[in-house]
């Protein structure tokens, strides 16, 4: 049971840090709303309603990237990651804790983005919310692992989007599909499959990413 206690402790630390410093989350919120406004100006008037759905998903992807880019900066700057790795806890607990933190941030950002989207573009249906919830899991799982990889490199913020975008193309397909198609079940199922595969893969391989 210490595994989950470790996870809880680490996750609490991240969230508390964010509540005190308040730098990442406000940026994400502002970014997602600004992006939606930009999209309004970039869509020609004949654009369909489904086009705006696609743009919402893009906005969410880049908001996630923004948050993920900061996921390991604190650890890297204070060199805390080595300490965490040396601590007698399973390395994958670090991953899980970070993931939970990222999920919380994403959730808050979406709690702002979805009403904004509903206001600017079109009403939000249950399929969109379900798809977003499922997609969050995949994005957080894969994103946390890739953020750790990028943190180990020289290029850091430059590298994360390059690693992230090809891997999350299936998430975009699943998410947009669930929103626009009449029968969203298949797409939601596909999102769940993606989440399962990549969460397990990320959880299992995080150890190798943070250890020398």
């Amino acid at each position, binding site marked *: 049971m210490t595994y989950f206690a470790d996870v809880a402790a680490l996750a609490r630390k991240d969230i508390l840090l964010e509540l005190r410093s308040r730098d990442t989350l406000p940026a994400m919120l502002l970014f997602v709303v600004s992006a939606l406004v930009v999209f309004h100006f970039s869509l020609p008037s004949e654009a369909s309603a*489904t086009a705006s759905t696609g743009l919402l998903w893009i906005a969410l992807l880049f908001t996630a990237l923004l948050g993920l880019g900061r996921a390991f900066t604190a650890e890297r700057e204070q060199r805390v990651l080595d300490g965490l790795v040396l601590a007698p806890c399973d390395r994958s607990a670090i991953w899980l804790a970070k993931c939970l933190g990222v999920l919380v941030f994403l959730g808050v950002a979406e709690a702002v983005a979805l009403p904004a989207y509903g206001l600017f573009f079109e009403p939000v249906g249950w399929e969109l919310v379900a798809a977003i919830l499922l997609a969050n899991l995949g994005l957080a799982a*894969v994103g946390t*692992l890739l953020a750790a*990889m990028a943190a*180990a*490199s*020289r*290029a850091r913020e*430059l*590298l994360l989007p*390059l*690693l992230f*975008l*090809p*891997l999350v*193309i*299936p998430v975009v*397909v*699943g998410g*947009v*599909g669930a929103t*626009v*198609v009449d029968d969203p079940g*298949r*797409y939601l199922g*596909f999102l769940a*499959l*993606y989440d399962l*595969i*990549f969460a397990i*893969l990320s959880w299992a*391989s995080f150890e*190798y*990413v943070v*250890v*020398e």
Partner: protein
Amino acid sequence: MSLSNNRAVLLAAAASMLLVAGLALALFWAPEDADQGFSQRIFYIHVPIALTAYACFGWGAWKALRLLWTRESRYDLESYTAVHMGLIFGILTLVTGSIWAKISWGVWWTWSERQLTLFLVLFLFYCAYFMLRFSVEPGPRRANLSAVYALFGVALIPVSFLAIRLAENFIHPVVFTRDGPQMSGSMFVVFCVCLAAMLALFASLYTNELTGKRLDARLRELREALE
């Protein structure tokens, strides 16, 4: 794994013979396709190259798994070389696929061709592999990161393919229809020869690349020992 000269030479000879035989068969002996005519012959080079690219990525992922399992550093070079070749074969797939699209439908690119779209996604993914490698200092850290990424790549292949199939429902209506590879007996023989040729080419080039890179590393060690 030090290679005796015999094995490398044999591999190269086999690859050359198979390649020449395969291409000759494809251009001269294979029967003309009823629907597509001469342009169908591009299949004999496009599909084997695509399959070989998959084989490269799979081989690279296997070596990556071995690295993470045994922590022997030689697997890093082997995995990297395989991914490198996979990228080259992938680029060739995209180029030959684009030419085929031009022949069949008059456009240089079409999103309705699933294999091509999949290869584009994989191409982006493995290009990022190289960006990852170039931005980390050489050492066990880089080896581990590359290995994990290579494994993710292999997991991405089926997931992406599924995604692309699902995406067809809402992105573009499938305007272009294409006959599946319903190949007659002799066509299949030619295809198999060409596939064997491409795989042998990969094996031969891989062996050479690996030897070259290992020589590089050993010369560097020698230099450090002498200076």
